[in-house]
């Protein structure tokens, strides 16, 4: 196994070739904020929260999909990156209809946590107030597109872990939305196994268990990690 050595925030890290910068940073306990990344799912670099700077180039790189290179010098928390991350979260808030006070995921939301982490109390960008729908046709779960940040975790967890591929992204630009089946109500999609993995994967309150009210959303992230481990390594650790 080839090993690459690199410097992340002045800390020397050695890690197997082919690993990502994010994995290397986790190895060295250096926090890099992420939103669309979920352990066990294919990284897609959709949210751009994990952008890092690499010495020798002015471009920013998403840590979750950028492979480590020998002698790389990576910075994860420069003032420039802090500014971009803050702007990124502000744009997410301005783009959807995120009203924490009445959300099932209040106090249990990765978007909210990130906003607190980067120090946001409002968005400098005009709120778009898009007209989005809520689908409560499934007997057990609901999806509120107002709270969706299009991280595609649900799309990936349904495709890669459950194998049903109920979800996908439809349309483009500001009309982009998560769609189920052939643009059908979720409850009418015959491929759905009602496993609830999308509820566990969703970082916000967009996909939730029916019956949960403000601040009551529960998710079982360990279940996903357990399943991935069982699938990939035939180890049942629960």
């Amino acid at each position, binding site marked *: 196994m080839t090993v690459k050595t690199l410097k992340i925030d002045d800390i020397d890290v050695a890690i197997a070739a082919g690993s990502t910068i994010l994995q290397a940073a986790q190895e060295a306990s250096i926090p890099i904020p992420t939103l669309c990344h979920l352990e066990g799912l294919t990284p897609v670099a959709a949210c751009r929260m994990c952008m890092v700077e690499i010495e020798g180039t002015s471009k920013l790189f998403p840590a979750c999909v950028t492979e480590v290179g020998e002698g790389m010098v990576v910075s994860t928390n420069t003032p420039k990156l802090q500014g971009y991350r803050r702007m990124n979260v502000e744009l997410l808030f301005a783009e959807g209809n995120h009203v924490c006070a009445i959300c099932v995921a209040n106090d249990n939301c990765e978007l909210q946590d990130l906003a607190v982490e980067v120090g946001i109390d409002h968005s400098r960008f005009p709120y778009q107030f898009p007209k989005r729908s809520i689908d409560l046709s499934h007997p057990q779960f609901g999806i509120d597109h107002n709270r969706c940040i299009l991280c595609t975790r649900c799309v990936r967890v349904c*495709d890669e872990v459950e194998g*049903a*591929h*109920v*979800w*996908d*992204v*439809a*349309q*483009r630009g500001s009309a982009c939305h998560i*769609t*189920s*089946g*052939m*643009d*059908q109500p979720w409850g*009418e*999609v*015959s*491929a759905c196994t009602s496993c609830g993995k999308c509820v566990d994967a969703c970082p916000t309150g967009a996909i939730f268990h029916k019956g949960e009210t403000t601040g009551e959303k529960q998710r079982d992230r360990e279940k996903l990690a357990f399943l991935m481990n069982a699938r990939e390594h035939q180890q049942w650790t629960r």
Partner: protein
Amino acid sequence: MPISSLPSQLKSGSPPAGDSTVQDEHRHFKVLDVTMKRHRHQPDALIEVLHQAQAAFGYLELEVLAYVAKGLKLPLSKVYGVATFYHLFSLKPSGAHTCVVCLGTACHVKGASALITALENELGIKVGETTADNQVSLMTARCLGACGLAPAMVIDEVVSGKQCPDTALEQIRALSGK
């Protein structure tokens, strides 16, 4: 999922079934089958197959998308996602007439946006939509290569240049015979 088990609302877009329409549809599905077979039903031929489907049917009904999904063994949501992502694919039938307004730089400078506003108001639709009576589809293009005629528009493949909102509306009204 077999087509027959699709919920009924997915079929609502089908044209009224006269005998000739049914035969036409049958022939179109045959074309689709041949295309998919030529690509050995490989899932990565999706865009090719959708192109062929759009050429045969004129637009992509949900029923056709479901047929393609089944033929290529792809999830419904994926096929729907791809079909709605690309501007070249249309999920609705286009109108009997098409009206394309050029938004290239020259036309823009010469007031193409005023043409669009006037046409949108007259037809009661937005760019990219078709009137409720399926008569006119309003579209835009980025430069027709006829900048000398700016602002230009194309109605049913006939270019007319140096338009102003009044002349544009006149042409549109002539179409619908108003």
